């Protein structure tokens, strides 16, 4: 019987003692914090497992509030909780207007001239500092796939035509590809903007066509055919105005002699079936 008394005594004592200590601590040592903190903490698993790389759920919650991590970075919580956190904090879970990366070059292998054989490291960035690579068009894609490697979402596969093919469904518009491309060939645009110029060469006329069969030769027909001022010629290339009063239309592409201006209904380049499973060229 005395054991029971001791046990219950000690336990109750301990419980009461620490509850009071904590209560006092709460009063006097409390540090003001973001009121949302509590709620977020509630939604996090509270395992303090450190799996997110942050030292515990509290730290993760703070990072969430500071907007430097995303709810999904907590791999332990359930999908539902993550969604709830995202909703509570009003952070975007990748919704918004769909945007996609597009290549300002259509110079597939065989269409663009080649001056010298590039025998160096298989990397666009490395080739770009070696006389800009061996292709005749100094503005065009080098085709060595740095963008493919940079895309964390496997949204780019290098096609047999030597150009990077973006899979629109996979692209999350992160811009990594455009950051890595030494020629700055990628632009990330809303999918809705369907008219696109896939050439970056400012050369005109036969000079342009001499380097690449599908170059924009600045003939200006697209600017004439597009409604109003929606397409203008600037520096040897058409510039499409999406903000202006006239909506650019597919007409602009009808008389393009080289196919440099295109109307995109899906992927910019058709990804051949066999390339879908392409494991990705690993850097040797």
């Amino acid at each position, binding site marked *: 019987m005395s054991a029971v008394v001791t046990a219950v005594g000690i336990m109750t004592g*301990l419980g009461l003692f620490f509850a009071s*200590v*904590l209560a006092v*601590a709460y009063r006097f040592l409390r*540090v003001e914090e973001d009121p949302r903190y509590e709620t977020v903490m509630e939604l996090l698993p509270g395992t*303090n*497992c450190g799996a*997110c790389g942050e*030292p515990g759920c*509290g730290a993760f919650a703070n990072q969430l509030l500071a907007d430097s991590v995303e709810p999904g970075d907590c791999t332990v919580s359930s999908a539902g909780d993550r969604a709830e956190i995202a909703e509570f904090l009003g952070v975007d879970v990748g919704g918004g207007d769909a945007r996609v990366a597009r290549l300002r070059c259509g110079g597939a292998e065989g269409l663009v001239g080649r001056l010298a054989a590039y025998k160096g490291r298989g990397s666009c960035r490395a080739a770009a500092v070696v006389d800009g690579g061996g292709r005749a068009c100094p503005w065009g894609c080098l085709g060595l796939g740095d963008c493919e490697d940079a895309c964390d979402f496997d949204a780019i596969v290098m096609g047999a035509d030597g150009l990077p093919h973006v899979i629109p469904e996979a692209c999350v518009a992160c811009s990594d590809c455009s950051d890595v491309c030494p020629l700055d060939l990628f632009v990330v645009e809303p999918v809705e903007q369907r008219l696109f110029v896939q050439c970056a060469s400012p050369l005109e006329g036969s000079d342009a066509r001499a380097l690449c069969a599908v170059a924009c030769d600045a003939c200006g027909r697209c600017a004439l055919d597009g409604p109003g001022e929606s397409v203008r010629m600037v520096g040897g290339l058409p510039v499409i105005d999406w903000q202006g009063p006239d909506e650019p239309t597919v007409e602009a592409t009808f008389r393009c002699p080289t196919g440099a201006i295109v109307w995109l209904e899906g992927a910019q380049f058709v990804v051949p079936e066999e390339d879908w499973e392409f494991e990705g060229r690993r850097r040797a």
Partner: protein
Amino acid sequence: MGDLLWIFVAAAVVNNFTLSWFLGLCPFLGVSGRLDTAFRMGLANIFVLLVTAVCAWFLNAFILPHAPYLRLIAFIVVIASVVQFVEMAIRKLSPALFEALGIFLPLITTNCAILGLALFQTNREYGFVESISFALGAGVGLTLALVLMAGVRVENELRDVPDVLEGAAMSFLVAGILSMAFMGFAGLFSGVA
């Protein structure tokens, strides 16, 4: 004195808490990805282990003889509360220290290394000074393991690690190699040779 040294060395390297007792693996895997986080986590660990050693010794000496069946629950409640209290105190008194170490405290509070320390120290009937030496050794050992692991993992970001090995699998294999390397300390200072 020699005993204290042996207790320290044994806990730090010979029977390293993480690499040969498998204690505290969750934070070991979680925060060993960045060097400075790992190091600070280690320091915070040393601190909590010391607090734990003192609490556990105190409980063992004064309270638990009356109720041995409360050992586990007393350990965990007391340690958790004390650490929480210390955390709050640090946060209030020294925001800088809190930034550096305090944020790690909740992660450590209830992990097995802490409780393991209390239990082992009880099983082995360590006195106060021995407990402190044991806790220091365990903490230094945890820090060492964390920091070495972080060194390898940080460099891994620059390696062409095969995809299937990214993440936890790699950490475990590296821990395995480290654990093999630490076997070199076996028998250190056991005075047999």
